[in-house]
């Protein structure tokens, strides 16, 4: 399965809905999308990972890169994920401490630091 991406605006947040597999082949597509959003002035991103079937370290790298970019503009990058197998990858790499991970898009959109 390939990667699917769609974006929408909720208040001052930009929600990126990701579906499919994020790996070494598809991760560049996600990177491009995040870079484009930040270049267009969207600094508060919510990445909805509920439709993601597979995520590897390449995908993690892209998310960390996205976080770095939005932080340069005092922005934020929040994740939405309830899938245990995806959450596990964030845990074993220690990235649960780096990303705020929410259980729903509504919760992520409403969250403030």
């Amino acid at each position: 399965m390939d990667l699917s991406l769609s974006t929408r605006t909720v208040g001052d947040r930009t929600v990126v809905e990701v579906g499919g597999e994020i790996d070494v082949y598809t991760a560049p597509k996600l990177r491009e999308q995040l870079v484009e959003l930040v270049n267009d002035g969207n600094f508060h991103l919510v990445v909805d990972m509920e439709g993601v079937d597979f995520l590897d370290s390449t995908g993690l790298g892209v998310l960390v890169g996205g976080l770095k970019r939005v932080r340069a503009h005092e922005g934020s990058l929040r994740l939405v994920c309830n899938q245990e197998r995806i959450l596990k990858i964030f845990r074993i790499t220690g990235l649960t401490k780096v990303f705020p991970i929410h259980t729903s898009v509504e919760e992520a959109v409403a969250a403030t630091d």
Partner: protein
Amino acid sequence: MATVELRFSALPEHVRTARLVAAAVARRAGVDEAVLDEVRLAVGEACTRAVGLHQSGGISAPVKVMLIEEEKQFSIEVGDEAPHAHRTDGSAVGAGGDVEAEEDEMGLAVISGLVDDVEVMAGEHGGSIRMTWPATPSVVVLP
């Protein structure tokens, strides 16, 4: 010979194929369903690392994946042909510089976090990652 052997050109688009094949053979070998996600992820990480090493080193040889079914265990060995430079701390990095080295380490971190039994080998003529999981061959129960 390995139960199933796979060779693919060092291109990112083939890593998914390697994951699918590895998971299918692991399932057949009796690896627990709950562990198959880990097998898929670990073999993907190992192949991604090998593809990166071949690409940054300009190596045209294919990446090799061996899926080995044994009596009570299932092993996957992913081999690359990249010359590995040894560091003083004993770990190996590719020749591609710091960025690749960091990504390489991230992949290895995921593998060692996922798999209890991992062996990383690196030499002048290439390296390999061997990962082993327990397997219980399915018992056919007659009605």
